């Protein structure tokens, strides 16, 4: 009985935190909310794995934990690209 209660509590946490994505004001604010929600999702999946007795959900949680950083790296690359106007690799037909 405790496990589903905690799952619901964490989901409500996530929903309340959506307000920060809505308000911003900066892109970094929105991004770090997404970070928190990624971690919340990992926790919820782990709890669901125990409650529903499905160990494979732990593997799904692991994939989330590993790949959460990908979006953050993409975000800072995006911000750096906007600020400096620089580009990274370009597929422009020239040899390396």
């Amino acid at each position: 009985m405790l496990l589903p209660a905690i799952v619901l509590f964490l989901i409500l946490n996530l929903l309340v935190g959506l307000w920060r994505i809505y308000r911003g004001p900066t892109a970094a604010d929105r991004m770090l909310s997404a970070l928190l929600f990624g971690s919340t999702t990992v926790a919820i999946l782990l709890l669901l794995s125990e409650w529903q007795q499905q160990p494979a959900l732990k593997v799904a949680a692991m994939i989330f934990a590993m790949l959460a950083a990908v979006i953050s790296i993409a975000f800072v690359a995006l911000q750096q690209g906007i600020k400096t106007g620089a580009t990274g690799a370009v597929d422009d037909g020239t040899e390396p």
Partner: protein
Amino acid sequence: MSLVIDLVLAISLVVLAWQTLIGRSLFRGLVMFVVFGLTLAMIWARLGSPDLAMAEAAIGTGVTGAMLMVAYWRLRRAVPEAAEERVPRRPLLAATIGVLAAVLVAAIGLTTLSVLGPGGVAGYALAEALPETGLGNPITGVLVVFRNLDTLLEVAVLLAAYVGARAAMGEDSAALPLPPAQDAPLVGALVAVLVPLGLLVALYLFKAGSQDPGGAFQAGAMLAALAVVLMLAGRLRPAPEPGVWMGFALIVGTAVFSLIGVAVMAWGQPLLAIPGMWAVYVIEAAMMVSIGVTLALLFSGSAGLGVRSRS
């Protein structure tokens, strides 16, 4: 309690979808879409589908999230005012489509409620036929053995999508840069930890797919996510020419599947009858490679990938 959880998740999914599409800020919609993906994964978990939760994790977090960010950046470079444009409001059209969609969802929902569960006819037949294939995962059984025509066509559609995307770019294929490579020391350390481990996870997903949740799609999506990380960190770069191995990797999934499916006819079997567990592994391996490479190339928008050595 479980009903409350499911209701809250369902309502938040709709709210997130609404917030993704509405509003002035494209970036806000982007982040809402990422959270939408997270909520979707939780819903798959609640529906008892670890396979789909894994696939959503790998594709939604690793590939689509980064792809949308890069697309947003390219949009801002090309058309700066488009990123902050107001969405034109058409309330009457939106209401009509909304009502139609709600009716459709209600119809599907009521139909599935009246259909028998896993104990029904199709589920019963599947449970009977599965042990003969040697597989323990019914989803892999359906995907690779029983309804494999759908899977074959899906892999072919993925290839067609890539070809279509390249064709749509046309002369602009040289104008699709990636954002600046992240050279910060921590990124290098993360890549050094993440990529080998990610490879292990991908191989585990591939191997586990026969008996436990997992399979070629999840493994391929994981590989694509690793390629995305390497591209963002500057270790891989888009290349103008595909090279032999890249072209081979793109088509190997469709080709191997079709080849085995047609070759069995020489032994009197019907089309696409799978001859044994070895065929399942070979087909899944080929699909994993194709899916991973195609998704990675869809992210970079280029014809191929090249390695950039640390000089």
